[in-house]
């Protein structure tokens, strides 16, 4: 399931709901991305999405991960709009029969979300605002899966 939200969400509650009722998935892996303060250099994040298109593109990534890693299920919750330091931005959870596939699929989905999901991120700080684009490290991370 893919959800874009504009209000803060509770990762623990999301994960509890995602785990509930599973009898055949022996493994659930999860990742929570949190907005960093960068020692005061970032006072707020602003994430822009393209409603409709963003969910559809993430849906393609999830379908690809499901096929590649044999997932039973996956959850992506992603904030957009204004986000304060300390607030969760993204939750990815993956369910599979055994742990390795769940861990790898979670890592894969995060690498894709960082540099291929249709979001545009602006950092606001004392020195002004700047648009963040994928770093060399983000591009190296995604290249691991080719």
């Amino acid at each position, binding site marked *: 399931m893919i959800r874009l939200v504009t209000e803060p969400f509770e990762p623990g509650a999301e994960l509890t709901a995602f785990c509930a009722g599973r009898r055949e998935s022996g493994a659930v892996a999860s990742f929570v991305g949190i907005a960093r303060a960068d020692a005061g250099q970032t006072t707020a994040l602003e994430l822009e999405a393209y409603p409709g*298109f963003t969910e559809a593109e993430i849906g393609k990534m999830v379908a690809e991960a499901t096929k590649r890693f044999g997932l039973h299920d996956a959850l992506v919750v992603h904030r957009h709009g204004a986000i304060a330091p300390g607030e969760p931005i993204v939750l990815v959870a993956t369910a599979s029969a055994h742990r390795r596939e769940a861990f790898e699929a979670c890592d894969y989905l995060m690498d894709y*979300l*960082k*540099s*291929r999901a249709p979001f*545009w991120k602006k950092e606001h700080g004392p020195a002004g605002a700047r648009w963040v684009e*994928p770093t060399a490290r983000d591009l190296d991370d995604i290249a691991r899966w080719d």
Partner: protein
Amino acid sequence: MRVLLFGRLGDLAGWRERAFDPAPATLSALKALIATGDAALGAALDGPGVRAAVDRAIVRGEAALSPASEVAFLPPMSGG
């Protein structure tokens, strides 16, 4: 035709959504029209990593447009 700009392109242009009537017949004609009114934006649309989507599907190269089209210009993406 609805044209959407995202990320730094919206800041550069000073708008994020605009209707074009009459609608240009092709993506290249739309870009040429935008460049006529705003040369810096026109150059940015052809800049590195900027992609276009027509009716929410990424297009490469040229695309035919109609008055009902929704065209979006997408700079490099960064989620998470």
